[in-house]
């Protein structure tokens, strides 16, 4: 916690630049969809999607740490918020995506046609 309130303007503009650059990269990749990334699968998802998700988490980190000033909070508050959210979201996403994939298999292999 910074008791002396020095101006953080420089850091704010730096983070803004960073977020803009990352967003621009995402948009360029999303429009061009380079073949070697889009067609290469890694752990059930193509590389392009992995890049998008990693860049998103990178942006989220900077928004929370710099803009929401998480870097200035006590470690206890930081962990209470971040660890809780990350654990619960990973848990939820894992369960729902696994289940969704399973239901997909059921539909695909069933003898009944669902959508024709």
């Amino acid at each position, binding site marked *: 916690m910074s008791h002396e309130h020095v101006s953080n303007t420089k850091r704010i503009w730096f983070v803004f630049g960073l977020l803009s650059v990352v967003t621009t990269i995402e948009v360029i990749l999303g429009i061009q969809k380079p073949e070697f990334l889009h067609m290469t699968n890694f752990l059930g998802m193509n590389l392009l999607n992995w890049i998008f998700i990693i860049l998103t988490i990178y942006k989220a980190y900077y928004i929370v740490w710099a803009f929401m000033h998480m870097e200035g909070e006590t470690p206890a508050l930081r962990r209470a918020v971040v660890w809780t959210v990350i654990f619960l979201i990973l848990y939820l996403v894992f369960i*729902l995506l696994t289940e969704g994939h399973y239901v*997909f298999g059921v539909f695909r292999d069933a003898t009944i046609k669902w959508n*024709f």
Partner: protein
Amino acid sequence: MGSTVTTANTVGKTWDGGNEPLGASYGKLMMWFFIVSDALTFSGFLAAYGFSRFKFIETWPLADEVFTHFPFAHGVAAPMYYVALMTFILIFSSVTMVLAVDAGHQMKQGKVAFYMFLTIIGGLIFVGSQAWEWKNFIHGEYGAIETKGGSLLQFVDATGKRVALEEFADTSIPKEREQLTRGKAKWFMEEGSLPTYSVEQIQAGFKSHPDLLVRIETINSAETVANTKGLNENPALNSPKHKLILSRAESEKRLADATIVVEGANLQRNEYGSKLFADFFFFITGFHGFHVFSGVLINIIIFINVLLGTYEKRRTYEMVEKVGLYWHFVDLVWVFVFTFFYLV
């Protein structure tokens, strides 16, 4: 920074009460509580979206074919540009918000007010952009046909380019019935608007345009082609990870099963593909838009208080910090919505 309010010296008083392990004021802690619970709400929505998408992974609409509009650029396919612009607007309003917080730390009333004002403008532009996005989404562009089995048929020409219903519908055939309105019946009798064309008009128009082909929802890949054996797809037009285009004979066969003409999107069906796609789009971007809207309202309240000098009298601008936390959270959610709806 909670330190602006909590001043108690806590050293060596671990068990004597008055200890503040989180070093944050009550108001800020409660904002963090809210943000954590709201974050879990949004991740619930996005995870549900992921569930449905994994469930229909082979037929889910492709985002860059759906969101292709840009203001003043009619008929130009501009995937992603508009939503990228919206993202920049929101990030920028986040920056002005954090600049307002920063100015608050230095007790500069005028600067705080100025940056709060910019933040409010940015928020309003974002909500307006979202409304425009919704308008295009609801209105649709090409139109499609729903079959008896609930799948969606879209139309392309011989080169694989999308064709709108109005370009080939045979309007010489009378529509099966008129729109029911109050004026033509009893005062309590009305119905939702009918599609511009009837199924018969589309079928006849398709017959008289021999170069037209049907495009189905299934995404082209080695697997889907293997799974849909016997499907006579069109090898010349189909490329990987695009929707499958059928041969003319197969197209006619599919079109014979047509039941409903679909134009644009509503909560029941949409011309883009999976019915759930529009539901999730409306629900998640709508819920986010509602957050932006209420954020703008709260910002306006705080802005007025800044102008009135409320926080000068309190000798602290912590209120700006708290509303700032909320505003950044809304931005944070958008970063994820952007990725999972438009990019992935």
